[in-house]
């Protein structure tokens, strides 16, 4: 009986996805000890693949203050083309989505307001007149949405907007807070997905319970959102009357199969080992199930950072993050194998000596994985590096 169960388990276990990696490329053209590029963004949407063109966005201070940039690499090009500056004044946390046929839509925070623009060409528009930060984007078919954290009284709250796209022009069709009432505490770092059924799911980091808890809400039509619910199944709370609960932060969402959604975030429920990477799945019921720990036992006693999940309609799913289990920070990934996340694999060009961190990633239409990360060197400066991988 046990042997039969083992055999069934083995058959159900798809072959460990082994990846064949390209030679890494450097994305950014401006390096130096005093130039600091960053890949931070809401839902970590820093790379996208549109047709056969890869687009990467980031922020750096080469011009004396933080500005946002986009660099593109057509498949036929051996290197990334010279980057395009997206912003005119202080800019942070840019994101990019693929529109197909080499076109992209980028969004970012500039001078305290969130903006978006179609590229190549296009003109930047403000998405809101209110003070706003941490914008992200999601698309399915022709349904393009943005979400951001907007000042509402003392705190920020999450706003979701449907965007209209006409040639190179963007406009806001409607924007509304996920929750009608004023926020009682800070909300931020939204992650957004438009599923195959055109429903909209937004997750964000919320402090209403006096500690950071990822909350989630769904909308069938992009206008009316369900009451927010915890993404985590861990009922965090005070311990012996102390504090308010262990934190969980920076939720990310990805399409998973036709109508499913996967979530990955950093979770401190095991507070002795830093943040761990946790995941949950919504198979299309618009309810997230039990939480799973993503990193394997070799990473258990190590803090994980900068987690992201990427997936596609075919059901492929990969989680990425960085941790220093081998002595220095490396970029790690884990494939979802249908039952669990597999063994953790170090991205070859983003591991080894030195510090490699802050991965952002995307799956293209063929299922190839495109990964961008920071390669830090205090003397030479930080390079933004890129590699793609195909499953063997």
């Amino acid at each position, binding site marked *: 009986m046990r042997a039969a169960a083992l055999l069934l388990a083995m058959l159900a276990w798809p072959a460990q996805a082994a990846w064949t990696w390209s030679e890494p490329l450097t994305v950014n053209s401006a390096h130096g000890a*005093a130039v*600091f590029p*960053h890949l*931070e963004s809401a839902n970590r949407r820093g790379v996208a693949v549109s047709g056969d063109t890869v687009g990467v966005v980031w922020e750096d*201070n080469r011009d004396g203050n*933080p500005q946002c940039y986009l660099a593109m690499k057509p498949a036929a090009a051996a290197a990334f083309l010279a980057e395009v500056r997206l912003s005119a004044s202080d800019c*942070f946390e840019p994101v990019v989505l693929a529109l197909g046929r080499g076109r992209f839509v980028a969004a970012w925070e500039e001078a305290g307001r969130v903006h978006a623009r179609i590229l190549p060409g296009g003109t930047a528009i403000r998405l809101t007149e209110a003070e706003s*930060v*941490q914008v992200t984007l999601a698309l399915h078919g022709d349904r393009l949405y943005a979400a951001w954290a907007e000042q509402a009284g003392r705190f920020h709250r999450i706003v979701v907007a449907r965007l209209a796209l006409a040639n190179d022009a963007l406009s806001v069709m409607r924007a509304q807070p996920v929750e009608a009432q004023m926020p009682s505490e800070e909300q*931020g*770092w939204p992650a957004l997905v438009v599923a195959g059924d055109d429903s909209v799911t937004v997750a964000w*980091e919320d*402090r209403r*319970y*006096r*500690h*950071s808890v990822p909350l989630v809400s769904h909308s069938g039509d992009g206008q009316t959102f369900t009451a927010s619910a915890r993404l985590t199944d861990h009922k965090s709370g*005070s*311990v*012996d009357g*102390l*504090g*308010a*609960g*262990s*934190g969980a*932060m*920076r939720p990310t969402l990805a399409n998973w199969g036709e109508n499913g959604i996967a979530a990955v975030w950093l979770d*401190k429920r095991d*507070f*002795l*080992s*830093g943040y761990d990477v946790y995941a949950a799945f919504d198979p299309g019921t618009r309810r997230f199930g039990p939480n799973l720990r993503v990193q394997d036992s070799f990473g258990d006693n190590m*803090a994980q*950072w*900068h987690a992201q999940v990427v997936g596609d309609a075919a059901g492929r799913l990969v989680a990425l993050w960085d941790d*220093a289990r081998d002595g220095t920070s490396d970029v790690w990934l884990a494939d979802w194998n249908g039952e669990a996340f597999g063994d953790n694999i170090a991205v070859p060009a983003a591991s080894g000596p030195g510090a490699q*961190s802050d991965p952002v990633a995307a799956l293209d239409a063929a299922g190839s994985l495109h990964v961008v990360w920071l390669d830090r060197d205090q003397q030479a400066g930080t390079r933004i590096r890129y590699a793609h991988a195909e499953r063997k």
Partner: protein
Amino acid sequence: MNLIRMLLAASCLWATAVLADPPPGYPFVGFDAGLKAARASGKPIFLYFGRYGCAWCDHTNKKTFSDAALKTLYSENYVLVYVDAESGKRLTLPSGERITEAELGVRLQAFATPLFVYLTPQGDKIMQIPGFKTVQDFVDYDRYVRGGVYKQKTLLEFLGGKS
């Protein structure tokens, strides 16, 4: 009605102060303001890296930072900086790099909160100490830092030989 609103608002502020953040009554400031003040005054920086809702931070605030003498010692001799481990608020490192408060935790390789970091007035790290500490621990760390002992001895050597 106004009185009720005021009481509710006051209770919210009290709850926030108790559940998170630095200990009440201490002159903690943000990272950038603290670095500027330290450079101007020549005082070392005591950086409290806490987390909103953190139980051990709450415990340390109640058990240790409630000590009046410790409050005087640290308030008078350090620039006190508080950083929130999960905040997206931005700060500027001495190198000129702008990062979020949460990202500072990555750079410090913060495993747990609270984490206490002692910095020179220029923002160079002297040492970092994780977890709950007693009043006596902080008095010892003060002697180690402000006495300049850290330039000659490790903290363990200092603590092993202290009289």
